[in-house]
């Protein structure tokens, strides 16, 4: 049986191995992270000082749109799917994913989707310029012709996500090693199981939204066109019915990752495992009834406003429970601060700050002032960058020795961490201030009263970008020439993944492991 991987390029094209596919997802996401980062730097360069210096306003809008889309659909989501591919079978003692051929397909359609999306930058009329939220009618009647390609790209990304989600559910529900009951599963597996259900529930809604757009643009319908009896607000309801669960799709697996890392480096079991599971489920369920908190200013009836305000405030309770549990896990532990732990601690602190601004945004009357300003940009970057990106980074440092069999350079890891940590705060903290001072988001130019904060943000962005180059270098040099890692890698970590050799052999758990 012990046959290794095929040779050459076709290994990657035809592979059905969860480890190969996981690696491809991760590299793809890394590439998209840099692409989205370049777009962000164009935005920050233009905003370095007042006046139009580098780009035209229309191109600026294309940059914000592409940055948002590439980061959300290209960097964060594929990274989590990649981690799930690698780790879920290893964590539950399964030989591979349940549906390996579909696994291959769900990865390989992604590069095409993003090639199509990126190609719109070179089309007449330019790339999509209506924001990653693509509100109609700006994205329909008033859109550049490339919007059709955008719609197809979204469809493909959606199909990929749905296939990935089905695969993960099928794997977790059917392929656990005997004795691995649901309440024994690692948190990462739990959070991904719940995330996968969210994906299956909402990706079709997104597909519906873009299909209605397609019909409005090419087939004379008026779903979102008021002149034809349609309703532009309907678009926003449909979009955010997808969009709000989507933000949890980007954070629940992150909860799972730090729930694996913090206990290892605190040398103490995760505090409140079952309450963590219930809190995750509660967040997922509540995430379906809070969508209109993105729409407090569209003129909903007062009853709707009140409902969505209270529901949103409610969702912060289970989120708080998770944070308190992590803190309690650290309390009275015996902590060391290797790179994965540093990123995880930064995750807990900075995600909490993002949570604070989230609670502020939930106060509907105050949201009338915050909405669509840089305060919101600060908020969602505090939950996405230290939330999603830091947890992914932490996961990569944590599991890279298992994947590659080699240890990363700890000093360089720490340099990466501190550069990223400082860069991130210098970039995004001032955005709270510019937002409160009244700077709207998605503008290429602004009054001098916002100039100082913007200049600081732009400097921070360059720092943050530089930090990621350190990361890239560290990962590559580890794979090529890191020193050998032990099978356990860390000090007595918990989980089946540490029972297999480093690097993890091409096939693992062909015989199910015994679960105590």
């Amino acid at each position, binding site marked *: 049986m012990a046959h290794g991987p095929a040779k050459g390029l076709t290994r990657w094209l035809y592979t059905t191995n969860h480890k190969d596919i996981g690696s491809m997802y991760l590299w793809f996401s890394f590439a998209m992270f840099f692409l989205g980062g370049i777009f962000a730097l164009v935005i920050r360069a233009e905003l*370095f*000082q007042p006046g*139009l*210096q580098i780009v035209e*306003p*229309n191109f600026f*809008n294309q940059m914000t749109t592409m940055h948002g889309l590439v980061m959300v659909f290209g960097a964060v989501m594929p990274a989590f799917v990649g981690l799930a591919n690698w780790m879920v079978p290893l964590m539950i003692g399964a030989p591979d994913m349940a549906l390996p051929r579909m696994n291959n397909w769900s990865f390989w359609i992604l590069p095409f989707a993003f090639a199509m999306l990126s190609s719109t930058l070179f*089309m007449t*009329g330019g790339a999509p310029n*209506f924001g990653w939220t693509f*509100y109609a*009618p*700006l994205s329909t009647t*008033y859109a*550049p012709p490339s919007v059709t390609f955008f719609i197809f790209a979204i469809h493909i990304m959606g199909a990929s996500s749905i296939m990935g989600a089905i695969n993960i559910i099928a794997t977790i529900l059917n392929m656990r090693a005997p004795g691995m009951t649901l309440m024994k599963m690692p948190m990462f597996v739990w959070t991904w199981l719940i995330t996968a259900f969210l994906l299956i529930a909402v990706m079709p809604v997104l597909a519906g939204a873009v299909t209605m757009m397609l019909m409005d643009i090419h087939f004379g319908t008026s779903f979102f066109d*008021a*002149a034809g009896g*349609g309703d*532009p607000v309907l678009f926003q309801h449909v979009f955010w019915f997808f969009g709000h669960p989507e933000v949890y799709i980007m954070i629940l697996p992150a909860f799972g990752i730090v729930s694996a890392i913090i206990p290892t480096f*605190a*040398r*103490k*079991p995760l*505090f*409140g495992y079952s309450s963590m599971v219930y809190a995750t489920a509660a967040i997922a369920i509540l995430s379906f009834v809070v969508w209109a908190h993105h729409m407090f*200013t*569209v*003129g909903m009836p*007062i009853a709707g406003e*009140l409902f969505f*305000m*209270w529901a949103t*405030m409610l969702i*912060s*309770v289970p989120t*708080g*429970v998770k944070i*308190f549990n992590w803190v309690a*896990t650290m309390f*009275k*532990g*015996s*902590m*060391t*601060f290797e790179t994965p732990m540093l990123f995880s601690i930064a995750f807990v602190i900075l995600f909490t700050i993002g949570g604070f601004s989230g*609670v*502020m945004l939930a106060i*509907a*009357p*105050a949201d009338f*002032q915050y909405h*669509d300003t840089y305060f919101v940009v600060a908020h969602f970057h505090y939950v996405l960058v230290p939330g999603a990106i830091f947890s992914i980074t932490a996961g990569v440092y944590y599991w890279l020795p298992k994947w590659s069999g080699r240890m990363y350079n700890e000093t360089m890891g720490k340099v990466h961490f501190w550069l990223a940590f400082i860069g991130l705060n210098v970039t995004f903290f001032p955005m709270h*201030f510019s937002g*409160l001072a009244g700077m709207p988001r*998605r*503008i290429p*130019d602004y*009054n001098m009263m916002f100039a*100082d*904060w913007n200049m600081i943000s732009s400097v921070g962005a360059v720092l943050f970008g530089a930090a990621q180059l350190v990361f890239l270098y560290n990962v590559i040099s580890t794979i090529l020439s890191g020193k050998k890692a032990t099978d356990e890698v860390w000090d007595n970590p918990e989980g089946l993944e540490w029972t297999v050799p480093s690097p993890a052999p091409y096939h693992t758990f062909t015989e199910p492991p015994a679960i105590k």
Partner: protein
Amino acid sequence: MLKTARRLCAWMLGFTCLLAAGGALAEEVERWKFNMTPGVTPISQNVYSLHMQIFWWCVAIGVVVFGIMFVSMFLHRKSRGVKPANFHESTLLELLWTAIPFAILIMMGIPASKTLIDLYDTEKSEVDVLITGYQWSWKYEILGEDVSFFSKLTTPTDQIEGHASKGVNYLLEVDEPLVLPVNKKIRFLVTANDVIHSWWVPAFAVKRDAIPGFINDAWAVITEPGIYRGQCAELCGKDHGFMPVVVEAKSEADYQAWLAEKKAAAAAIAELTEKPFTFDELYAKGEEVYSRSCAACHLAGGQGVPGVFPALKDSPVALGDINHHIDVVVNGVAGTAMQAFGEQLSEVDIAAVVTYERTAWDNNMGDLAQPIDIYNHKQGK
């Protein structure tokens, strides 16, 4: 990209100098402003106090949570030889840290709900203003007063492109501000003509999405005379960053005087419709109207933006039948960004801009439209 990189380097160097030289700006613009304005309406002050309350709650929770974290990061580290404890469950704790945040939220939710209900109470207004968002200007109509006008950005391109030094109200200045009386309940009815915009004046805590086909409402009682500035707060296309809102709050007497002045000006313009103009008069005026109202899309040289906004230079419309040309400008092209200018511009302005477009940029048609032609066109003749 190279250019960008070089610029970035230059800026990095200039950064320190700029911070030092910043003093010159400081006298004119408020800098380092970091908090929400309490504003000048009862609602805006309530909103501000909600904002500060919830902020201090967050600070308090942060101090506790981060405090415990930092203490344990300091005390409970392996390098101090600590042996880890092994506790991993406590129902009491779980209940506590569910219940306490819950209680805090209820304490915040009640005043927030009250303010929200108040904010929605637009009944019994004394002045009604209909606000319509256009790409990229605001139209204001004082209902019942027969006063209606457009309000557009006046910041010159020179300042935006950095050829001239920027004024204090850079990007926050308009040709005709909305004038309102103080101490009266004003109701804003907000809608849009093309895409979604959002009318926002921070000092009033009024932000209402302007949505085509819908009319939203909001209200304010302005307690202090003054000039209040805001911006569009919903991405509405290319010039989203360039459609400010300026409101001037005046005493009742001054407000009445302004209304009278507006009405007189409208009458004077109506009179001009009858008057024939020479080609040169129309052409000169047309150039000005064009740069104000059309150049945002069709560009100053008439070359347009390929695939988005058609060129008017050598355009079949500008070189074709003048009646069709007038029709496009007056009625717009349904379902495109080309809006109906019939109600945005006066007859004189439309006649002028059509005349201009037909001869400028080597279109060389040399014919002209008179205001009366536009008037007749609008009447369907």
